[in-house]
């Protein structure tokens, strides 16, 4: 497997998407880039077309104690080495554009996020229940909202 030439990847993504994308020394064993949530779909396109990087290991969502008003979402990709794209969403509008048109395998990860954290994904069909019971009518169980 080819190793990730990280600088090149960052430069390409910056040029092609034209967004802010700051690599930082966050996650161990993993290249980490912070990108705006709005550009996720474009970045995915670059990864797929330009770098042939398909493998999405997981999508993590988490809330930081010092920033309770936002949800951090991390897309963990892998191509010989791990590369993570970190984005933050305000709790008022938890919307991300779905990457399932490019990568159908993201389906279950997105559904898990939608059910457990209440994130809604635009640009994909309605999400039927996967993990929670059919008659679940309470807020997403993993999301803590401080009111």
């Amino acid at each position: 497997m080819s190793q990730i030439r990280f600088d090149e990847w960052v430069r390409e993504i910056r040029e092609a998407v034209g967004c802010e994308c700051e690599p930082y020394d966050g996650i161990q064993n993993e290249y980490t880039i912070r990108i705006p949530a709005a550009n996720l779909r474009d970045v995915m396109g670059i990864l797929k077309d330009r770098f042939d990087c398909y493998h999405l290991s997981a999508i993590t969502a988490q809330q930081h104690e010092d920033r309770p008003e936002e949800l951090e979402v991390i897309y963990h990709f892998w191509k010989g080495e791990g590369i993570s794209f970190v984005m933050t969403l305000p709790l008022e509008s938890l919307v991300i554009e779905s990457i399932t048109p490019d990568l159908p395998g993201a389906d279950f990860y997105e559904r898990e996020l939608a059910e457990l954290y209440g994130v809604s994904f635009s640009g994909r069909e309605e999400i039927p229940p996967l993990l929670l019971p059919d008659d679940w009518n309470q807020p997403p169980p993993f999301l803590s909202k401080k009111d």
Partner: protein
Amino acid sequence: MRKITVPIGPQHPLLKEPLSMKLEISGERVLGGTLRLGYVHRGIEKLAQQRTYVQNVHLIERICGICSHVHTTTYCSAVEAILGIEIPPRAQYIRALMCELERIHSHLLWLGILAKHVGLDTIFMHAWHDRELVLDIMESISGGRVSHAANEIGGVRFDLDEENETLIRTNISKLHDQVSGVLDVIENEPALQARTRGVAPISTDLIRQYCMVGPIARASGLDVDLRRDDPWPPYDRLDFNVITHPDGDAWARTIVRAEETRESLHLCEAILRDLPGGDVTVRAPRKVPAGEAVTRSEAPRGEVFYYLRSDGSDQPARLKIRTPTLPALSLLPEQLSAINVADIPVVLAGIDLCIACADR
């Protein structure tokens, strides 16, 4: 022909763990279906945030009843990465040894289940009988047949002594014979081949699109194995073959898993041969400094992914677990369309379902 909806699960003789499928069937043909998970969702990711790092080792072990060791290994290496400690070489080797034993045990169990599903109970019984040899080894090392509690942060809790090593050597050489025998049978059994060849093939392209991992990916010709491609020690020092098969059907998945069992037997022997001396554990602090880490391991079913964030306390701030069955399940509705009713068990067996893993 009239369409009928057949429920498979949550309780069904085909399933060892709860999973619910609703399949549209016309005659003997499956037209498609939907899938529901969550019957064994225990919220372990959330639970882990309320337990200390040390307690979590034992919680994580309960995610899966088959590949429990690889889960704790991946978790411990994530904690160790944030702590910045390196475990002694002997501990690394013992961890890898347990991982390989677990792979042998998991693959033999799987082979038995496949055989049972196609009505070949003899192979089922023989495969599970041979699996006892592996469980005996596990028991002699750790005292536990399935949940070993062998890992701790900073190393392993059990050392190998002379007696263990002899038992491993004798059982492994017995297993070599048994596995060759079973392989010989399945390769020459016309009915088993008739039931698996050409059933539910997955193209390499689909494998990539659905982020499939492990033996399923390798059976479709995708040459990926984290033990070689993204190794943690001692796998970078061990020499082994990654088994792939171009066909992508249920037969290819059978052969890949069977050959992998053999490869793991060789790996166990190599690990025993190279086993360094010294301690098996280093002291790890109870509190973990703030930081994030990702670790991946090759479980029997493929890539196990752990993301861990620490906020400096003695409890993780976030632990994300992705198990290999989840992507495999996402392709299941697709695989279950346009097949025969009789092929449902073969398709399900081919995935090597571990619902407890997928639900967490």
